[in-house]
């Protein structure tokens, strides 16, 4: 415990500070020449997307997915109050997604603030979304859901997974190669955006307002895509 305290306080006699730390060695000249040749041969301006463009494109992709599901569902009869509530919810969670993108991806790696904030978003937002689903849902017995609701839940869940995959993979692709420092966390945030887009879009299209259905078919998708995003982030977000 005292060692940890010493380390954290920096309270140790540092006779090595300012001392003879070894000079960094240099690579051989032929290695340098080879590297220079590869990295400057026929060099041209790199094709580049700004962070702002990537952000706008990510939001446009999310909006497009939302719009497609909203238009698909317009043919299905839904109580007007339910649709209005779903749209208000979508607007609110949409604002949350903008914050997630700004905090987690737009700022350059190394300047994104404490890792604990981003991890907090990854842990807290799916829980908050599930609580939200519990709050807006209509309670029904579990047995009733199992006997009559699983078919619709499965269809809804698969639809949410499909559109979540389109959005998550799209966002990951837009931000590919941008984060060698924390690719898993950034990927998980991209997945969070994809999962939430799909969940709120499905929410406007879905006929069911039952709690078990909302949590399992809509809410669980968010958690799934956080995991998918973390795996994809390691693969695609690191150069």
């Amino acid at each position, binding site marked *: 415990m005292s*060692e*940890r305290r*010493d*380390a*954290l306080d*920096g309270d*140790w006699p*540092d*006779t*090595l*500070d300012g*001392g*003879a*730390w*070894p*000079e*960094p*060695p*240099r*690579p*051989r000249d032929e*290695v*340098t020449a*080879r*590297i*220079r040749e*590869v*990295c*400057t041969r026929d*060099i*041209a*301006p*790199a*094709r*580049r*997307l*700004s*962070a702002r463009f990537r952000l706008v494109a990510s939001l446009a992709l999310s909006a497009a997915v939302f719009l497609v599901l909203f238009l698909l569902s317009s043919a299905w009869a839904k109580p007007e109050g339910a649709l209005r509530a779903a749209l208000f919810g979508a607007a609110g969670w949409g604002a949350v997604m903008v914050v997630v993108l700004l905090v987690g991806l737009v*700022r*350059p*790696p*190394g*300047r994104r603030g404490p*890792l604990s904030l981003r991890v907090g978003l990854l842990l807290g937002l799916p829980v908050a979304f599930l609580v939200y689903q519990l709050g807006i849902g209509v309670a029904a017995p579990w047995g009733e859901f199992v006997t009559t609701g699983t078919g619709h839940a499965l269809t809804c869940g698969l639809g949410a997974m499909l559109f979540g995959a389109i959005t998550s993979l799209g966002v990951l692709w837009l931000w*590919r*190669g*941008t984060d*060698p*420092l*924390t690719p898993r966390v950034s990927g998980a945030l991209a997945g969070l955006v994809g999962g939430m887009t799909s969940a709120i879009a499905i929410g406007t299209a879905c006929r069911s307002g039952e709690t078990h259905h909302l949590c399992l078919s809509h809410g669980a998708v968010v958690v799934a895509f956080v995991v998918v995003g973390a795996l994809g982030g390691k693969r695609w977000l*690191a*150069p």
Partner: protein
Amino acid sequence: MERYVAGDAAAFDELYRRVAPRLFGYLLRLTRNRERAEDLLQITFVKVHRARGSYLTGAPLLPWVLAIARRSFLDERRSARLRTEDLSDDGTLPEPVEERDEVPVELASALEQALDGLPEQYREAIQLTKVSGLSLQQAALVLGTSVTAVKLRVHRGYVSLRQRLERFQRAGR
């Protein structure tokens, strides 16, 4: 980096001059083998070259490059574990790195030896913070861990370094 991304070859020379020594020192500390360090240096710069279009304006360059290098080192070590032992050119097994018994005369040499003898985690943390000059936050990002963990590793590495240096000093008298 911005000028290099824009296609300025001279900017690459300046970038290389600023980054390569610290990057190579870090790779040498990780691999303890000059040839492997040089290979990884080339791999890292090729990745930097290919990924320059993905570099977001304002990202601190040294942590960015070091993170790419570290990932390349870990990938190479992972795939090396799956390969059979490499033979040297004459078909014999490579000689293991021997512990150096001679007592270094200067502090810098003693420090070099002592650093090389540390466990990898401590060695890496000290190399990044003390030799490469990264802040604790930047080192934590490169290592994929927390600032607290980096502080502890540096502290424990320091304790071990001081013990080794005291032994060098006693042996030298």
